[in-house]
């Protein structure tokens, strides 16, 4: 944990929206238009967390959990109903433009690039908007363009770029003025494997090499697994879990599996592990990784059986997170 004050501090954050209650029946649509019958919707309810400089945090939750609403309040484009947000010492919604200089935002679903103009023009405009000095700007742009391999398409209008190219363009745009904090809202949504990997590598790299603090919102749990040490999990506008990803996995997915291919089909019976599946010569056993170590199990199996092949299967993060989403809460500890 960093010693200095956290870069982002969120305390008891609440956001309520007022929605017009829809009228049913004849001319319902028209009557809704003139209705003064409102209902309160609580999108974010008492959320608190803090993020230190240099962290890369996954901000996760199912659709409608309140992720985007939180991010909008962190960037200052939504005003909290109550609670406090501080980003680099500023109150984003009151000091939105000053805050804008400290942050970069990349939305997977929309672009900040200028649609009709060559990509190069967007980069130039961003540098001018944020007052990046010419020398620094040229160097940084050249570095970023090379890192994300955008050189060949700099002169193409943004509207002609593929989704992956556009996404990389947006990442460069957000990093040109070197913001201390980068919000990435589903940066890999809709991308193919190659594009996804490339963007993931880039995110990891700027976090490590430039020390950029990153808040990542995504539904792609591979992103999370590859990038985030810490996650904040929310649902129904409340924080369900805030801490290391590894700890969550150890706690809620305590079992690891060992897949054994035997020379002769047989049931596997060894201490500290139980057989969960048998398909011909292929047997799957599971064991609690917090109580017994994998090499001990492997040694026991190879000592007792004629083994052709072995592999240890890591617990799957999407199984854990998926379970939490469907339970709408953390599962009870399995002791």
């Amino acid at each position: 944990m960093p010693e200095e004050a956290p870069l982002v501090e969120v305390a008891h954050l609440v956001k309520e929206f007022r929605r017009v209650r829809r009228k049913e029946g004849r001319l319902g649509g028209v009557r809704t238009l003139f209705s003064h019958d409102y209902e309160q919707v609580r999108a974010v309810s008492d959320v608190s967390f803090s993020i230190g400089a240099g962290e890369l945090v996954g901000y996760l939750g199912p659709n409608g959990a309140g992720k985007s609403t939180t991010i909008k309040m962190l960037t200052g484009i939504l005003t909290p109903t109550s609670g406090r947000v501080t980003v680099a010492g500023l109150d984003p919604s009151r000091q939105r433009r000053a805050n804008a200089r400290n942050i970069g935002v990349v939305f997977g679903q929309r672009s900040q690039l200028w649609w009709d103009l060559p990509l190069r023009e967007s980069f130039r405009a961003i540098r001018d908007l944020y007052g990046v000095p010419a020398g620094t700007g040229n160097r940084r742009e050249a570095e970023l363009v090379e890192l994300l391999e955008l050189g060949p398409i700099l002169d193409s209008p943004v509207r002609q770029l593929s989704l992956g190219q556009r996404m990389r363009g947006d990442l460069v745009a957000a990093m040109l003025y070197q913001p201390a904090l980068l919000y990435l809202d589903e940066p890999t949504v809709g991308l193919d494997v190659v594009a996804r990997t490339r963007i993931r590598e880039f995110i990891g790299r700027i976090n490590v090499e430039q020390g950029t603090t990153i808040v990542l919102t995504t539904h792609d749990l591979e992103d999370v697994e590859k990038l985030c040490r810490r996650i904040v999990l929310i649902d129904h506008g409340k924080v369900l879990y805030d801490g290391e990803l590894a700890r969550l996995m150890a706690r809620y997915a305590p079992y690891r599996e060992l897949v054994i291919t035997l020379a002769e089909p047989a049931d596997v019976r060894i201490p500290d592990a139980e057989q969960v599946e048998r398909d011909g010569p292929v047997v799957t056993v599971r064991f609690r990784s917090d109580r017994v170590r994998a090499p001990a199990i492997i040694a026991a199996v190879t000592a007792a059986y004629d083994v052709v092949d072995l592999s240890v299967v890591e617990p799957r993060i999407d199984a854990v997170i998926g379970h939490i989403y469907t339970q709408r809460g953390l599962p009870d500890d399995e002791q």
Partner: protein
Amino acid sequence: MTAIRAVYSQVRIGWRTPWAYRGPTLLTMMILAAQIALYTVVWRAIYRGHSGTVHGTSVDVAVAYVILGLTVASVLDLWPRQSIASRVREGLIGVDLLRPIGLLTQTLATQVGNVAANIPQTVIGLGMGFALGGLVPAHGPGAAAAFVLSLVFAFAVSQLITLLMGLSSFWTLEVGGTTMLFGVVRTFLSGTVIPLWFMPGWLRTIADVLPFQAATFTPLSIYFGRPTGGLLAALGVQAGWVIVLFGLCSWVWSRAQRRVVIQGG
């Protein structure tokens, strides 16, 4: 300096964007040339066999007026940039709000760039007018100088009208054709094709109390030596509209913005 650079970046965006669409830009130029030719033919036909003036206007002035009117309007009268309502719907308002300069500044700067990109239209308009023998000199050197000053005000008024139109769409919603209707009203009441002095009293009154005439009719009336209420009054009304429209835009935007940031659109 930093602020100027930031604003200029948006002027540049506005300047470059129309050039990304060469087809429509060339088409606009052809439409301008055709309109000038047609109105010239019609005015000359109306005045044929009628040697004097109508409402104090000779055939030469009527023709020169429509040439200048269409040219000025083709440079200054932009369609509103993507309206705020549609930016909110597409979630792009967030992108606008996260820029280090305000939305009104961004939009106005882009419009200034668009107007600059339209300047070549004057070559088409005046060239066509010249080819048809329809141009006449200003009423005098004073009128010419005042015309230039009045054009500057007209530029400001026209940009603020376009901006206000885009902003107010937040409430008026974009029922199909509203923008078209706005375009027709604007062209007519600004006196782009028909000088206000041809209009019957009641219609003239409507045109006089609305800002549109300050964007085209005023500079032209100065050019032809017939400013309403005298030169100073005409320029004063323009300046007044700049202030009023600017105030209206700021007010409308502050209301719209409050709703966006509190209600999330």
